[in-house]
Protein backbone atom coordinates (compact mmCIF):
# COMPACT_ATOMS: atom_id res chain seq x y z
CA UNK A 1 0.00 0.00 0.00
CA UNK A 2 1.18 3.53 -0.67
CA UNK A 3 0.15 7.13 -0.38
CA UNK A 4 -2.82 8.38 -2.35
CA UNK A 5 -2.31 10.06 -5.71
CA UNK A 6 -5.18 11.47 -7.68
CA UNK A 7 -5.55 10.86 -11.39
CA UNK A 8 -9.20 11.57 -11.93
CA UNK A 9 -10.55 10.72 -15.34
CA UNK A 10 -13.91 11.84 -16.68
CA UNK A 11 -16.79 9.41 -16.62
CA UNK A 12 -17.88 8.13 -20.02
CA UNK A 13 -20.29 10.56 -21.64
CA UNK A 14 -22.92 7.87 -22.00
CA UNK A 15 -23.11 7.42 -18.22
CA UNK A 16 -25.36 10.40 -17.63
CA UNK A 17 -26.99 8.83 -14.56
CA UNK A 18 -23.93 7.26 -13.00
CA UNK A 19 -21.14 9.30 -11.50
CA UNK A 20 -17.62 7.89 -11.63
CA UNK A 21 -14.33 8.86 -10.05
CA UNK A 22 -10.92 7.23 -10.39
CA UNK A 23 -7.68 7.63 -8.53
CA UNK A 24 -4.74 5.64 -7.27
CA UNK A 25 -4.29 4.68 -3.63
CA UNK A 26 -3.00 1.79 -1.52
CA UNK A 27 -0.85 0.78 -4.47
CA UNK A 28 -3.74 0.11 -6.81
CA UNK A 29 -6.48 1.67 -8.95
CA UNK A 30 -9.58 2.90 -7.18
CA UNK A 31 -12.92 3.53 -8.83
CA UNK A 32 -16.21 4.51 -7.28
CA UNK A 33 -19.53 4.71 -9.13
CA UNK A 34 -22.77 6.10 -7.74
CA UNK A 35 -26.27 6.09 -9.15
CA UNK A 36 -26.73 9.69 -8.03
CA UNK A 37 -23.93 11.78 -9.57
CA UNK A 38 -24.67 14.55 -7.11
CA UNK A 39 -23.36 12.32 -4.34
CA UNK A 40 -20.11 11.42 -6.10
CA UNK A 41 -17.89 13.84 -4.21
CA UNK A 42 -19.26 12.68 -0.88
CA UNK A 43 -18.85 9.05 -1.88
CA UNK A 44 -15.26 9.62 -2.86
CA UNK A 45 -14.55 11.44 0.39
CA UNK A 46 -15.88 8.50 2.41
CA UNK A 47 -13.82 6.04 0.41
CA UNK A 48 -10.66 8.15 0.61
CA UNK A 49 -11.03 8.36 4.36
CA UNK A 50 -11.55 4.60 4.59
CA UNK A 51 -8.49 3.88 2.48
CA UNK A 52 -6.33 6.26 4.46
CA UNK A 53 -7.26 4.43 7.64
CA UNK A 54 -6.71 1.08 5.97
CA UNK A 55 -3.25 2.11 4.82
CA UNK A 56 -2.22 3.34 8.26
CA UNK A 57 -3.41 0.14 9.89
CA UNK A 58 -2.66 -2.61 7.37
CA UNK A 59 0.17 -1.55 5.07
CA UNK A 60 3.08 -3.96 4.92
CA UNK A 61 5.20 -1.25 3.32
CA UNK A 62 4.71 1.74 5.58
CA UNK A 63 7.20 1.71 8.45
CA UNK A 64 4.72 3.72 10.53
CA UNK A 65 1.80 1.36 10.00
CA UNK A 66 0.26 -0.56 12.85
CA UNK A 67 0.93 -3.81 11.00
CA UNK A 68 4.63 -3.01 10.64
CA UNK A 69 4.83 -2.36 14.36
CA UNK A 70 3.76 -5.95 15.01
CA UNK A 71 7.15 -7.07 13.68
CA UNK A 72 8.74 -5.73 16.85
CA UNK A 73 6.38 -7.55 19.20
CA UNK A 74 8.75 -10.54 19.39
CA UNK A 75 6.17 -12.98 20.63
CA UNK A 76 4.46 -10.68 23.11
CA UNK A 77 0.74 -9.95 23.30
CA UNK A 78 -0.21 -6.75 21.48
CA UNK A 79 -3.41 -4.71 21.71
CA UNK A 80 -4.74 -3.77 18.29
CA UNK A 81 -6.81 -0.89 17.00
CA UNK A 82 -10.42 -1.72 16.15
CA UNK A 83 -9.64 -1.42 12.43
CA UNK A 84 -6.67 -3.80 12.45
CA UNK A 85 -8.62 -6.16 14.70
CA UNK A 86 -11.34 -6.38 12.07
CA UNK A 87 -8.85 -6.77 9.23
CA UNK A 88 -6.96 -9.57 10.97
CA UNK A 89 -10.20 -11.22 12.01
CA UNK A 90 -11.33 -11.30 8.40
CA UNK A 91 -7.95 -12.72 7.32
CA UNK A 92 -8.10 -15.49 9.91
CA UNK A 93 -11.70 -16.30 9.00
CA UNK A 94 -10.55 -16.61 5.38
CA UNK A 95 -7.69 -18.89 6.41
CA UNK A 96 -10.06 -21.15 8.29
CA UNK A 97 -12.72 -21.19 5.59
CA UNK A 98 -10.21 -21.90 2.81
CA UNK A 99 -8.54 -24.72 4.73
CA UNK A 100 -5.37 -22.68 4.89
CA UNK A 101 -5.16 -21.76 1.21
CA UNK A 102 -5.35 -18.09 2.14
CA UNK A 103 -2.91 -17.64 4.99
CA UNK A 104 -1.96 -14.19 6.33
CA UNK A 105 1.39 -15.41 7.67
CA UNK A 106 2.97 -15.27 4.20
CA UNK A 107 4.54 -11.87 4.94
CA UNK A 108 8.11 -13.07 5.39
CA UNK A 109 7.91 -15.44 2.40
CA UNK A 110 6.63 -12.58 0.25
CA UNK A 111 9.53 -10.37 1.29
CA UNK A 112 12.02 -13.17 0.63
CA UNK A 113 10.81 -13.30 -2.95
CA UNK A 114 11.58 -9.62 -3.39
CA UNK A 115 8.12 -8.19 -2.84
CA UNK A 116 9.09 -6.17 0.20
CA UNK A 117 7.92 -2.71 -0.87
CA UNK A 118 5.21 -1.13 -2.95
CA UNK A 119 5.15 -2.96 -6.28
CA UNK A 120 5.94 0.25 -8.13
CA UNK A 121 9.29 0.21 -6.33
CA UNK A 122 10.03 -3.48 -6.88
CA UNK A 123 12.50 -3.93 -9.73
CA UNK A 124 10.79 -5.62 -12.66
CA UNK A 125 13.82 -7.84 -13.14
CA UNK A 126 16.96 -8.66 -11.24
CA UNK A 127 19.56 -11.30 -10.52
CA UNK A 128 18.63 -14.78 -9.41
CA UNK A 129 17.61 -15.28 -5.82
CA UNK A 130 17.67 -18.49 -3.83
CA UNK A 131 14.19 -19.84 -3.37
CA UNK A 132 13.54 -22.11 -0.42
CA UNK A 133 10.38 -24.19 -0.32
CA UNK A 134 9.18 -24.16 3.24
CA UNK A 135 5.75 -23.76 4.78
CA UNK A 136 4.87 -20.35 6.16
CA UNK A 137 4.46 -20.16 9.97
CA UNK A 138 0.74 -20.82 9.61
CA UNK A 139 -2.37 -19.01 10.76
CA UNK A 140 -3.11 -21.61 13.44
CA UNK A 141 -0.08 -20.42 15.40
CA UNK A 142 -1.58 -16.97 15.85
CA UNK A 143 -3.32 -16.29 19.15
CA UNK A 144 -6.08 -13.79 18.56
CA UNK A 145 -8.96 -12.58 20.66
CA UNK A 146 -11.36 -10.34 18.82
CA UNK A 147 -13.20 -9.18 21.91
CA UNK A 148 -10.15 -7.87 23.72
CA UNK A 149 -8.42 -6.91 20.44
CA UNK A 150 -5.38 -8.94 21.44
CA UNK A 151 -2.86 -10.68 19.21
CA UNK A 152 0.23 -12.77 19.77
CA UNK A 153 2.38 -14.31 17.07
CA UNK A 154 5.46 -16.51 17.19
CA UNK A 155 8.64 -14.44 16.86
CA UNK A 156 9.57 -13.88 13.24
CA UNK A 157 6.03 -14.20 11.96
CA UNK A 158 5.00 -11.39 9.64
CA UNK A 159 1.51 -10.80 8.37
CA UNK A 160 0.44 -9.90 4.86
CA UNK A 161 -3.24 -8.98 4.68
CA UNK A 162 -3.16 -8.38 0.93
CA UNK A 163 -5.36 -11.36 0.13
CA UNK A 164 -8.33 -10.05 2.09
CA UNK A 165 -7.87 -6.42 3.14
CA UNK A 166 -8.83 -4.81 -0.16
CA UNK A 167 -11.92 -6.95 -0.54
CA UNK A 168 -12.96 -6.30 3.03
CA UNK A 169 -12.41 -2.57 2.57
CA UNK A 170 -14.51 -2.63 -0.62
CA UNK A 171 -17.38 -4.36 1.20
CA UNK A 172 -17.12 -1.97 4.11
CA UNK A 173 -16.94 1.19 2.02
CA UNK A 174 -19.78 0.20 -0.33
CA UNK A 175 -22.07 -0.48 2.60
CA UNK A 176 -21.15 2.76 4.35
CA UNK A 177 -21.55 4.87 1.24
CA UNK A 178 -24.94 3.40 0.34
CA UNK A 179 -26.24 3.84 3.87
CA UNK A 180 -24.98 7.40 4.30
CA UNK A 181 -25.78 8.72 0.85
CA UNK A 182 -28.84 6.61 0.10
CA UNK A 183 -27.87 5.70 -3.43
CA UNK A 184 -26.48 2.76 -5.31
CA UNK A 185 -22.71 2.41 -5.26
CA UNK A 186 -19.97 0.30 -6.77
CA UNK A 187 -16.54 0.35 -5.14
CA UNK A 188 -13.59 -1.13 -6.99
CA UNK A 189 -10.28 -1.48 -5.19
CA UNK A 190 -7.94 -2.83 -7.82
CA UNK A 191 -10.72 -4.92 -9.30
CA UNK A 192 -12.08 -6.18 -5.99
CA UNK A 193 -15.63 -4.98 -6.52
CA UNK A 194 -18.40 -4.56 -3.97
CA UNK A 195 -21.81 -3.05 -4.59
CA UNK A 196 -24.52 -1.80 -2.27
CA UNK A 197 -27.84 -0.08 -2.67
CA UNK A 198 -29.90 -0.20 -5.84
CA UNK A 199 -28.01 -0.99 -9.03
CA UNK A 200 -28.60 1.06 -12.18
CA UNK A 201 -31.00 -0.35 -14.73
CA UNK A 202 -29.45 -3.45 -16.26
CA UNK A 203 -26.99 -3.84 -13.41
CA UNK A 204 -23.43 -2.68 -12.86
CA UNK A 205 -21.44 -3.54 -15.97
CA UNK A 206 -18.07 -5.03 -15.13
CA UNK A 207 -15.47 -6.26 -17.58
CA UNK A 208 -13.46 -9.17 -16.21
CA UNK A 209 -9.96 -9.46 -17.61
CA UNK A 210 -6.45 -10.51 -16.64
CA UNK A 211 -5.29 -7.21 -15.17
CA UNK A 212 -7.44 -4.44 -13.78
CA UNK A 213 -7.52 -1.27 -15.84
CA UNK A 214 -9.72 1.64 -16.72
CA UNK A 215 -12.88 0.53 -18.55
CA UNK A 216 -12.15 2.96 -21.39
CA UNK A 217 -8.80 1.28 -22.01
CA UNK A 218 -8.49 -1.90 -24.09
CA UNK A 219 -8.76 -5.07 -22.02
CA UNK A 220 -5.79 -7.18 -21.10
CA UNK A 221 -6.04 -10.82 -22.11
CA UNK A 222 -9.33 -12.66 -22.41
CA UNK A 223 -12.15 -10.33 -21.40
CA UNK A 224 -15.88 -10.51 -20.87
CA UNK A 225 -18.36 -7.88 -19.74
CA UNK A 226 -21.08 -8.98 -17.34
CA UNK A 227 -23.84 -7.22 -15.44
CA UNK A 228 -24.00 -7.43 -11.66
CA UNK A 229 -27.33 -6.69 -10.03
CA UNK A 230 -26.02 -6.93 -6.47
CA UNK A 231 -23.29 -8.52 -4.41
CA UNK A 232 -19.65 -8.53 -5.33
CA UNK A 233 -17.12 -9.73 -7.85
CA UNK A 234 -13.41 -10.36 -7.45
CA UNK A 235 -10.66 -11.50 -9.76
CA UNK A 236 -7.28 -12.97 -8.93
CA UNK A 237 -4.59 -13.41 -11.53
CA UNK A 238 -1.01 -14.52 -11.79
CA UNK A 239 -0.59 -12.07 -14.66
CA UNK A 240 -0.64 -9.14 -12.24
CA UNK A 241 2.00 -8.17 -9.69
CA UNK A 242 4.77 -10.10 -11.35
CA UNK A 243 8.50 -9.60 -11.31
CA UNK A 244 11.49 -11.52 -12.56
CA UNK A 245 14.58 -12.77 -10.80
CA UNK A 246 17.28 -14.61 -12.70
CA UNK A 247 14.87 -15.25 -15.55
CA UNK A 248 12.25 -16.82 -13.28
CA UNK A 249 8.88 -15.12 -13.24
CA UNK A 250 7.51 -14.64 -9.73
CA UNK A 251 4.08 -13.45 -8.70
CA UNK A 252 2.27 -12.43 -5.56
CA UNK A 253 -0.08 -15.36 -4.97
CA UNK A 254 1.85 -17.71 -2.72
CA UNK A 255 1.00 -21.23 -1.72
CA UNK A 256 1.39 -21.15 2.06
CA UNK A 257 2.37 -24.81 2.04
CA UNK A 258 5.72 -24.08 0.40
CA UNK A 259 5.94 -20.29 0.51
CA UNK A 260 6.42 -20.06 -3.26
CA UNK A 261 4.31 -18.55 -6.05
CA UNK A 262 1.52 -20.96 -6.92
CA UNK A 263 2.04 -22.80 -10.21
CA UNK A 264 -0.14 -21.27 -12.89
CA UNK A 265 -2.93 -23.67 -13.72
CA UNK A 266 -5.47 -20.85 -13.87
CA UNK A 267 -3.94 -17.58 -14.89
CA UNK A 268 -7.08 -15.65 -13.97
CA UNK A 269 -10.11 -16.56 -11.85
CA UNK A 270 -13.18 -14.37 -11.30
CA UNK A 271 -15.88 -15.18 -8.76
CA UNK A 272 -19.22 -13.54 -7.95
CA UNK A 273 -20.57 -13.80 -4.40
CA UNK A 274 -22.70 -11.98 -1.90
CA UNK A 275 -19.66 -10.08 -0.60
CA UNK A 276 -16.22 -9.28 -1.93
CA UNK A 277 -14.28 -11.13 0.77
CA UNK A 278 -16.05 -14.37 -0.10
CA UNK A 279 -15.50 -13.75 -3.81
CA UNK A 280 -11.84 -12.91 -3.42
CA UNK A 281 -11.06 -15.80 -1.12
CA UNK A 282 -12.65 -18.19 -3.61
CA UNK A 283 -10.81 -16.65 -6.56
CA UNK A 284 -7.40 -16.55 -4.90
CA UNK A 285 -7.94 -19.98 -3.42
CA UNK A 286 -8.63 -21.34 -6.90
CA UNK A 287 -5.31 -19.99 -8.17
CA UNK A 288 -3.60 -21.83 -5.31
CA UNK A 289 -5.68 -25.02 -5.51
CA UNK A 290 -5.32 -25.37 -9.27
CA UNK A 291 -7.47 -27.96 -10.99
CA UNK A 292 -9.07 -29.13 -7.77
CA UNK A 293 -10.81 -25.77 -7.49
CA UNK A 294 -12.94 -26.51 -10.51
CA UNK A 295 -14.59 -29.50 -8.87
CA UNK A 296 -15.33 -27.45 -5.78
CA UNK A 297 -16.87 -24.64 -7.78
CA UNK A 298 -18.99 -27.14 -9.66
CA UNK A 299 -20.14 -28.97 -6.56
CA UNK A 300 -20.98 -25.80 -4.67
CA UNK A 301 -22.46 -23.97 -7.64
CA UNK A 302 -20.14 -20.99 -7.25
CA UNK A 303 -20.49 -18.51 -10.13
CA UNK A 304 -16.98 -18.34 -11.51
CA UNK A 305 -14.96 -17.82 -14.65
CA UNK A 306 -11.60 -19.55 -14.89
CA UNK A 307 -9.02 -18.87 -17.59
CA UNK A 308 -6.28 -21.43 -17.98
CA UNK A 309 -2.71 -20.84 -19.02
CA UNK A 310 -3.60 -21.22 -22.70
CA UNK A 311 -6.47 -18.76 -22.51
CA UNK A 312 -9.28 -21.32 -22.48
CA UNK A 313 -12.27 -20.22 -20.46
CA UNK A 314 -14.44 -22.36 -18.21
CA UNK A 315 -17.45 -20.97 -16.38
CA UNK A 316 -19.40 -22.47 -13.50
CA UNK A 317 -22.40 -21.85 -11.29
CA UNK A 318 -24.48 -19.88 -13.76
CA UNK A 319 -21.74 -17.54 -14.89
CA UNK A 320 -22.77 -16.60 -18.46
CA UNK A 321 -20.79 -18.16 -21.29
CA UNK A 322 -18.55 -16.00 -23.38
CA UNK A 323 -20.51 -15.06 -26.50
CA UNK A 324 -19.02 -15.71 -29.88
CA UNK A 325 -16.81 -12.88 -31.03
CA UNK A 326 -16.32 -11.72 -27.46
CA UNK A 327 -13.70 -9.26 -26.42
CA UNK A 328 -10.20 -10.59 -26.82
CA UNK A 329 -6.72 -9.53 -26.07
CA UNK A 330 -5.79 -5.99 -26.89
Amino acid at each position, binding site marked *: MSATTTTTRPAPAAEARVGASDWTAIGTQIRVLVTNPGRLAAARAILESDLDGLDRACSRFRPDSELAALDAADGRWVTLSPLLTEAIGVALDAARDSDGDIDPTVGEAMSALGYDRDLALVAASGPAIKLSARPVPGWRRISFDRGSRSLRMPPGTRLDLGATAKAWAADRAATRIAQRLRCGVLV*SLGGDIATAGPAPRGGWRV*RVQDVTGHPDDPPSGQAQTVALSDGALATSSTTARRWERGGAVLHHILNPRDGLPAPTIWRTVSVAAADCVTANVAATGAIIRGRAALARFEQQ*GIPARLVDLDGRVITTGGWPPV*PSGAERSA
Partner: protein
Amino acid sequence: MFDQPKRTRRRDRARVNAITSVVGVSGIAGAVALAVALPGSTHSTSSSTSSTSSSTSSSGSTTQSTTNDSGTTTTNNNSSTSQAPQSTNQNAQATSGGS
Protein backbone atom coordinates in the same frame (compact mmCIF):
# COMPACT_ATOMS: atom_id res chain seq x y z
CA MET B 1 -21.06 -7.04 7.35
CA PHE B 2 -19.50 -10.04 8.97
CA ASP B 3 -22.78 -11.87 8.78
CA GLN B 4 -22.64 -11.86 5.02
CA PRO B 5 -19.86 -14.45 4.58
CA LYS B 6 -21.57 -16.72 7.10
CA ARG B 7 -24.82 -16.49 5.20
CA THR B 8 -22.99 -17.26 2.00
CA ARG B 9 -21.26 -20.25 3.53
CA ARG B 10 -24.53 -21.61 4.79
CA ARG B 11 -26.05 -21.20 1.38
CA ASP B 12 -23.04 -22.78 -0.28
CA ARG B 13 -23.22 -25.76 2.04
CA ALA B 14 -26.88 -26.14 1.19
CA ARG B 15 -25.92 -26.33 -2.42
CA VAL B 16 -23.67 -29.29 -1.81
CA ASN B 17 -26.15 -32.03 -2.35
CA ALA B 18 -26.23 -35.05 -4.52
CA ILE B 19 -26.29 -33.17 -7.73
CA THR B 20 -25.00 -34.11 -11.09
CA SER B 21 -21.96 -32.22 -12.18
CA VAL B 22 -20.72 -32.18 -15.68
CA VAL B 23 -18.02 -29.94 -16.90
CA GLY B 24 -16.61 -29.67 -20.33
CA VAL B 25 -13.06 -28.70 -21.02
CA SER B 26 -12.87 -27.31 -24.50
CA GLY B 27 -9.92 -27.49 -26.79
CA ILE B 28 -8.73 -24.66 -28.94
CA ALA B 29 -11.14 -23.22 -31.46
CA GLY B 30 -11.77 -25.74 -34.12
CA ALA B 31 -10.77 -28.67 -32.01
CA VAL B 32 -13.05 -31.26 -30.60
CA ALA B 33 -14.25 -30.41 -27.14
CA LEU B 34 -13.66 -33.00 -24.49
CA ALA B 35 -16.08 -33.33 -21.65
CA VAL B 36 -14.85 -34.50 -18.30
CA ALA B 37 -17.22 -36.03 -15.84
CA LEU B 38 -16.51 -35.05 -12.25
CA PRO B 39 -17.25 -37.20 -9.21
CA GLY B 40 -20.94 -37.80 -8.91
CA SER B 41 -21.54 -37.23 -12.55
CA THR B 42 -23.99 -39.39 -14.42
CA HIS B 43 -23.55 -37.77 -17.75
CA SER B 44 -20.81 -36.56 -19.98
CA THR B 45 -20.82 -35.17 -23.44
CA SER B 46 -18.52 -34.16 -26.21
CA SER B 47 -19.17 -31.85 -29.07
CA SER B 48 -17.71 -30.27 -32.14
CA THR B 49 -16.99 -26.61 -32.60
CA SER B 50 -20.52 -25.45 -33.10
CA SER B 51 -22.66 -24.51 -30.14
CA THR B 52 -24.10 -27.53 -28.39
CA SER B 53 -25.83 -28.14 -25.15
CA SER B 54 -26.96 -31.03 -23.05
CA SER B 55 -28.68 -31.44 -19.77
CA THR B 56 -29.33 -34.12 -17.23
CA SER B 57 -31.29 -34.37 -14.05
CA SER B 58 -30.51 -36.11 -10.80
CA SER B 59 -31.85 -35.75 -7.29
CA GLY B 60 -34.07 -32.90 -8.28
CA SER B 61 -31.35 -30.68 -9.69
CA THR B 62 -30.54 -29.97 -13.28
CA THR B 63 -27.14 -29.43 -14.68
CA GLN B 64 -26.71 -27.96 -18.11
CA SER B 65 -23.47 -28.05 -20.03
CA THR B 66 -22.92 -25.82 -23.04
CA THR B 67 -19.96 -25.45 -25.32
CA ASN B 68 -19.95 -22.60 -27.79
CA ASP B 69 -17.76 -21.90 -30.75
CA SER B 70 -15.57 -19.46 -28.87
CA GLY B 71 -14.16 -22.36 -26.92
CA THR B 72 -15.99 -21.63 -23.73
CA THR B 73 -17.65 -24.31 -21.69
CA THR B 74 -20.30 -23.49 -19.16
CA THR B 75 -21.83 -25.76 -16.59
CA ASN B 76 -24.94 -24.38 -15.01
CA ASN B 77 -26.55 -25.82 -11.93
CA ASN B 78 -30.05 -24.45 -11.63
CA SER B 79 -29.86 -24.05 -7.87
CA SER B 80 -26.84 -21.81 -7.85
CA THR B 81 -27.43 -18.70 -9.87
CA SER B 82 -28.53 -16.24 -7.22
CA GLN B 83 -25.28 -14.29 -7.34
CA ALA B 84 -24.37 -15.10 -10.91
CA PRO B 85 -23.84 -12.10 -13.15
CA GLN B 86 -25.70 -11.73 -16.41
CA SER B 87 -24.50 -11.30 -19.95
CA THR B 88 -24.37 -7.80 -21.36
CA ASN B 89 -23.03 -6.31 -24.54
CA GLN B 90 -22.95 -2.76 -23.26
CA ASN B 91 -19.80 -0.85 -22.40
CA ALA B 92 -18.20 -1.64 -19.08
CA GLN B 93 -18.39 0.77 -16.16
CA ALA B 94 -15.61 -0.93 -14.20
CA THR B 95 -13.10 -3.71 -14.64
CA SER B 96 -12.14 -6.62 -12.45
CA GLY B 97 -8.77 -8.20 -12.95
CA GLY B 98 -5.64 -8.99 -11.07
CA SER B 99 -4.00 -6.00 -9.45
